[in-house]
């Protein structure tokens, strides 16, 4: 490793310690703040439509809520995305409002028979927000996503998701 850069020792430790407080020579996750790229932003939108599943068989239904959004990185990036419930049926004080999730938010799914969720997808070109509903045993279900108003904080890192 080159000796050029900024190194800050941890409190009470010397710069020769293996673990430093800050070392500019080491890699870290970073987000480009160029305003034209919008690699960090807060989206606000209705959580989806009232997607339905059919009774009788396992069933999958999906829709794209945002995207394709070109991130212009040229590789599939590591992303951090948080889904925040701003209101339900227009009520910011409703049970469930104010809740949020890392990478995915489940509108329904605690029974293990339904998985109704909002999440993100990214590839080497584009970033998407999607809403899907899976009805594993075909009980027939209507999504409640349209009652949710979501804030979506996304951060697209200038780091590859996979491969060096």
């Amino acid at each position: 490793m080159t000796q050029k850069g900024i190194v800050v020792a941890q409190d009470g430790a010397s710069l020769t310690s293996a673990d430093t407080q800050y070392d500019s020579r080491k890699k870290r996750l970073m987000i480009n703040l160029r305003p034209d790229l919008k690699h960090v932003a807060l989206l606000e939108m209705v959580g989806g439509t009232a997607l339905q599943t059919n009774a009788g068989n396992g069933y999958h239904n999906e829709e794209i809520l945002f995207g394709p959004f070109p991130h212009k990185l040229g590789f599939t990036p590591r992303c951090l995305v948080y889904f925040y419930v701003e209101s339900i049926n227009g009520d910011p004080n409703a049970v469930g409002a104010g809740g949020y999730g890392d990478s995915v938010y489940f509108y329904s799914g605690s029974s293990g028979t339904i998985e109704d969720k909002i999440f993100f997808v990214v590839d080497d070109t584009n970033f998407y927000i999607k809403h899907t509903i899976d009805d594993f045993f075909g009980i027939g279900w209507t999504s409640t996503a349209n009652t949710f108003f979501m804030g979506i904080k996304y951060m697209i890192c200038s780091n590859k998701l996979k491969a060096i």
Partner: protein
Amino acid sequence: MAKGIEISQTAIPVSSAADYQKSLDSRWKILEILDEIVFTFTFTTTSWVTGVNYVKIYSHSKNKILPFEVQDLGSDYDTLHVPNIFATDDGIYAVIIHAAADATTAITLKLFVRIYNLDVTATYQAPSSTPSPGSGNEKALFGAEIVSNDFVGARMGDEDMTHFSLNTGAKPFQIHMHGTQNVNNDASHRLIVDHYLGYLPTFLLAGTTDQGAKYNGGVYDNPGAYAGKRTMQPLGSLAGLASSTFTTLTMRGAQSALFGNIVYLILKDPVALGK
């Protein structure tokens, strides 16, 4: 600050920058990458043993459990032999259960693993910071850049942030808190962390086991001398339902209850601000 280095993002005065508007504050830890590897390994048709099969993906000598992420690069394995990947205090392992009746099909693991240099299971909280009142915008032409050593040809002024280890036109992930909490101590199996950030924070979670990595509800030993020690799953592998006040983050399970020891990493980044 008494001693250290403080650098705010471009166009934001240091004196009024919020914690999430800093490119560097040497009082705080930054989520630092220790290593990134591509790991390939083949279990041949004759190498299976009945019971636990494991292979070490990554070794280190830090004597602590390091957080990591895994992405599959096109592994070739059957549905009977899905690997469970976890960290111990000397590295990262893939474990696969092979039952006596299972077919001894050859499988190949091909994984990308990013390892972070952070003792995330230990308790830590960053020193607090109170910005002074804002003094208006400054010209966006000023800032600091440190070119990364990893990119031949990288120069000051490049627009690709992968060329820099520090750039005031970019933000790193600064760490507010981390630690381990046993959620069984709460009647509703919630993770409850007092963060006192003043905003709703972003976070990453990972599950742990204290007796060994779990598989289909069962428990098998950790590799070698690590039987009975804590292991940790990939960072971000737990999807929960969070809520937070300005001071306290509460997390419960989504689709299944949280159980046992949970590792949390709270970042200096608000969930409800697009900055």
